[in-house]
């Protein structure tokens, strides 16, 4: 199909404009975080006046940022692998079970997906207190034991069902058990799904603000999102400092996304 030169240029321009528009808030965030803090009022613009990393230095002095970062990393390191294992097990089982049971589980999963998050705040609060998880990082990791969300299970189910059933049959005839079907046959064939789900799970746990807000009671256990709120309360009008905190909170997920996106775009 031939596309005329002018429409090609028009499309390229439109893409650049749309991309710039979507990057603008993040650019302003970054630019403000690099602006020199001064007694006088901050003036907005597209470029930081006298760029400096002074705000990041102040950030580290003001907050025990290393601890908060460590807490966030710990949550992600536990929650994401557990999520992927639980979700891929369930997804594989769904793909291989007979139609009737599969149908029941999918209806169950879709129903669970519709439960509003706010509905679980209070009862989970009681549950975690009962289990002694309240106030600890276990409360933040807990959803991983159910695969975080039926969404991940359904995504794995979709991927596994796209594979030829004969693959699994052949492996079974060769004597493979369900564990080997999962580890040796299924998982290696759905690596893009694992990568995408893993990324989404990292974004979910790293950015989770409500759980630490509700289920933690000491600052020592805080993760970065609640630390950012703490900073907001400490330095309400110190915009460069606040923006530095936001950049620090966003740095890892954004970097990770940029790192893995080439593999995520391969299929399409």
């Amino acid at each position, binding site marked *: 199909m031939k596309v005329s030169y002018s429409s*090609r240029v028009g*499309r*390229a321009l439109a*893409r*650049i404009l*749309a*991309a*710039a528009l*979507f*990057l603008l808030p993040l650019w302003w*965030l970054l630019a403000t975080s690099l602006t020199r803090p001064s007694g006088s009022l901050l*003036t*907005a613009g*597209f470029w930081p006046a006298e760029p400096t990393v002074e705000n990041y230095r102040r950030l580290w002095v003001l907050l025990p940022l290393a601890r908060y970062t460590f807490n966030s990393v710990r949550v992600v390191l536990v929650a994401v692998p557990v999520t992927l294992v*639980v979700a891929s*097990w*369930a997804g*594989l*089982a*769904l793909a*291989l*079970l007979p139609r009737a049971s599969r*149908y029941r*589980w999918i209806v*169950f999963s*879709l129903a669970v997906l519709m*439960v*509003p998050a*706010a*509905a*679980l705040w*209070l*009862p*989970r609060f*009681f549950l975690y207190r009962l289990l002694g998880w309240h106030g600890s990082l276990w409360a933040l990791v*807990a*959803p991983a*034991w*159910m695969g975080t969300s*039926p969404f991940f299970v359904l995504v794995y189910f979709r991927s596994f069902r796209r594979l030829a059933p004969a693959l699994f049959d052949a492996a*079974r005839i*060769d*004597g493979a*058990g369900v564990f080997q079907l999962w580890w040796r046959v299924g998982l290696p064939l759905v690596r893009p799904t694992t990568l995408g789900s893993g990324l989404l799970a990292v*974004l979910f746990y790293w*950015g989770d*603000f*409500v759980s630490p807000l*509700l289920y933690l009671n000491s600052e020592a256990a805080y993760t*970065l999102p609640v630390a*950012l709120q703490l900073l*907001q309360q400490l330095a309400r009008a110190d*915009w460069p400092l606040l*923006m530095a905190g*936001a*950049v620090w*909170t*966003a740095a890892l*997920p954004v970097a990770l*996304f940029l790192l893995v996106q080439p593999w995520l775009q391969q299929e399409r």
Partner: protein
Amino acid sequence: MARPQTAVRLSYHTRLRLMLLPYGLGTVALVIVPAALAFVLAFFRYDGLQPPRWAGSLNFALAVTDELFALSIQNTLALIILPVPLRVAGAFLLARLMLRGGRFLRWSRVAIYLPTATPVVAYAVAWLWILNPLYGPVNWLLRVVGLAAPGWLADPLWARPAIALISLWTLGEGFLIMLAALHDIPAVLEDAARVDGAGGWAFLRYVTLPLLAPVLLLLTLRDAILMLQESFTTVLLATGGGPYYATYTLPMFIFEQGFDLLQFGVASAALWFLYLLTGVIVVLVLLVAWQWRIGLDDEGLLL
């Protein structure tokens, strides 16, 4: 592969079901039981300190007669109706623009998704500065071009549009779904339509939109549920429900009743209304699925 015969040999299907066990048990413990508990709690007076006492329908009466409750329902609906159509339309147009071929394909897609990959907290704090009425960059721009600069998040009239505006940048998920849906429309169709003399708009009107109708509808409903739940963090950080309760939503009401006032019963009663709102949307989803004969294990419904 030789395997030792265990005393009890489980059948293949039983062992598959064992793989479902963590997911099933976890979901029952973390969602089903808590959700049921919250349903029941709506009929009790409970503050977390003294044992719960039966309260009949008192909590519902307390919730419904609370002025903030009615206001929170209105605000919740406004924060769905305002941004959702724009988010879906935006996702569709952007996906069309970045479907295939041409220059800057990969990097423009990355740019569209980047705000979605940013933690909501960091993003909300960033917008607090961007929309700052006095010094923020948006109002600076508006003044440079000579337009009136509204108070945005600090102005009761502008706070809701501001929250809706913020949400337009995080349409990344919808964008990916539209991209996949558009990708499934074979390029041959476009060629055929072109041969038949259809221009860009005719193709959009008579081929793309009818084919995508179910996806667009399902995405709209999914987005409505998403906004129902996820505007909470943005609102809590950016406005705290203000100014003058202009962005005070139903999840805010539940949060305050539960964790500030320790009125667990009233919070649970308000939850019933949240379920009701969600239920209406779910029924619409099922109607759409039924209309277009999308099966429950079809890919269409698993948006």
